[in-house]
C-alpha cells in the first residue's frame, strides 16, 4: 500500500525458521533486542540458534550465561541437531560464565554501584572487541539487573551497553525473564529495559484447554516493518519453528 521504502537497513539474518519472515528479512544490524519470556518458553533455544546461524556463516559469537553454568547449558543444547560442539571448540561460539566474569572483575558485592557497572560494560565490550563478536546473547539480563539497585542505574547500564555494542556492529539478544505474559505483565522484569532497547520479542504460553502452546510476538523492532501477530512456536531437534497462531485459538494477552 505504501510502496517499497527508499532506504532499508542491512539485516542480521537470524536463521530461525519463520522469524526472518516476520521481521521482513531479519534484525537490523547492530540492534539490541530484548527477548522477554516466561520459563520454558524457548528463549535460550532461540538465542542459541541465533548464534549457531552466525557461526555457520563464520561470524564470531558470544553467549554470557548468567542463569546456569555454561557446562550445563552446553549439555542441554547438545540434544539439538542444529548445534555442533565443534563451533565451540573452534571458537566461533564463545560461552562465558557471568559468575567467572564477576570474580575476574572483583565484583563480589551483592549489589553493583555505577563503577561496578562501568567495569562490567567495559569487560563485555573488551571481549567483543578482542574476539570480533558480531552476535551476542546475555542470558539473562534479568539476573544481572537484580544486582543493580535502582531503575536509573538499570537504564544507564542497558543504554550504555546497547550503544557500545551497536558501535561495534554487534547484534545482541538480551534475555529477560518475566513471570507472566498475562494482561498486567510488562515485557521485561523491571519495566525500564523495554523503553531503551531497539527491539522486543516476547515468548510465552497460551493455555488452550489445559495445554500450553508456546508463542512468540514481535512487539517492537526499530528500523524494520514487522508483523505484530502471535506465532505458535515448536521446539524441534532442528531448532525453533514458527507458524501463525490460529486467530480463533488466541486468548487475550
Amino acid at each position, binding site marked *: 500500500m505504501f510502496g517499497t521504502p527508499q532506504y532499508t537497513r542491512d539485516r542480521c539474518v537470524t536463521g530461525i525458521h519463520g522469524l526472518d519472515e516476520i521481521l521482513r528479512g531479519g534484525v537490523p544490524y547492530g540492534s539490541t533486542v530484548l527477548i522477554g519470556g516466561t520459563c520454558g518458553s524457548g528463549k535460550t533455544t532461540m538465542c542459541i540458534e541465533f548464534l549457531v546461524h552466525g557461526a555457520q556463516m563464520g561470524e564470531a559469537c558470544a553467549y554470557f550465561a548468567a542463569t546456569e553454568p555454561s557446562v550445563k547449558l552446553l549439555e542441554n543444547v547438545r540434544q539439538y541437531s542444529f548445534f555442533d560442539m565443534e563451533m565451540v571448540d573452534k571458537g566461533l561460539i564463545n560461552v562465558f560464565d557471568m559468575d567467572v566474569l564477576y570474580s575476574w572483575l572483583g565484583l563480589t558485592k551483592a549489589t553493583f554501584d555505577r563503577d561496578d557497572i562501568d567495569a562490567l560494560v567495559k569487560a563485555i565490550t573488551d571481549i567483543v572487541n578482542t574476539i570480533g563478536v558480531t552476535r551476542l546473547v546475555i542470558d539473562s539480563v534479568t539476573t544481572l539487573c537484580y544486582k543493580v539497585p535502582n531503575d536509573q542505574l538499570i537504564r544507564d547500564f542497558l543504554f550504555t551497553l546497547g550503544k557500545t555494542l551497536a558501535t561495534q556492529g554487534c547484534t545482541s539478544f538480551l534475555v529477560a525473564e518475566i513471570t507472566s505474559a498475562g494482561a498486567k505483565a510488562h515485557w521485561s522484569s523491571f519495566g525500564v529495559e523495554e523503553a531503551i532497547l531497539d527491539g522486543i520479542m516476547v515468548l510465552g504460553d497460551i493455555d488452550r484447554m489445559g495445554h500450553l502452546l508456546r508463542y512468540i510476538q514481535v512487539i517492537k523492532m526499530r528500523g524494520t516493518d514487522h508483523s505484530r501477530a502471535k506465532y505458535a512456536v515448536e521446539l524441534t531437534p*532442528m531448532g525453533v519453528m514458527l507458524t501463525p497462531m490460529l486467530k480463533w485459538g488466541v486468548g487475550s494477552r
Partner: protein
Amino acid sequence: MIELDQRIAEQLTEITLNSSLQVRCGTSNAFLVTASLLEPLVTEFEMGGIYISASRPAPELIDTLTEIGVPLGSIQFIDCVSSALLGGTDNPYTNISYIDSPIMLESILLRTLFHLRQMPTEQNFVVLDSVNALAIYNEERMLAEYLHTFINTFRARDVLTAVVTVPDQTPPSVLANLDLYCTDLIDRGQVVIS
C-alpha cells in the same frame, strides 16, 4: 485378508502433487479407505509421507497396516491420541512422534513441517486422519480456520494433502469449507438409508 479399494488407486493417477484430496468415508470403512489410499502412494508412486493420526493410536494403525502388507518404511506417524492414554507411548516404534492433544493444532502443523524437512523422498504426502476426530476437541470456527491454513501450507510446498473425514460426524460449516479448499474428492462415505 482385506481387499483394498483399487478404484482409489486409479483415481490417484489423475491428481497432481499440489492437489488437496478430501477423502470421505464412513465409520465402518474408514480403515479400508485409508489403507487403500496409502498403499498406492507408497508402492506405485514411491512417495514418502506423514500420517497424522487423530482418530486412533498410531501403534494400532501400524500393526494393522503391516498385517495387510502396506510398506511403512517411508511413512512418519504423528500420533495425537496416545499421549492421553496411560502407557500409550510405551511401544517399540521409532517412526511415531507424539502430540499431547488434538487441541494443539499449530503443533501438529509444525511437527508435520519438521518431519517433511527430514523426508528423504522427493515427492511427499500428508494424510490427516481425521477431521471428525479433530472436531471432537476443537471449536468449529477454529477447525475451519486450521484446515484452510493446513491445506494451503502443503499445497504451496507441492505436498499432496489428503484430508480424511466422516461427513455425518463433521460440523456442516467445516465440511462446506473442505469442499471449498480441496481440489479433489474421493467419496467412500456411507450410504444412509432412512
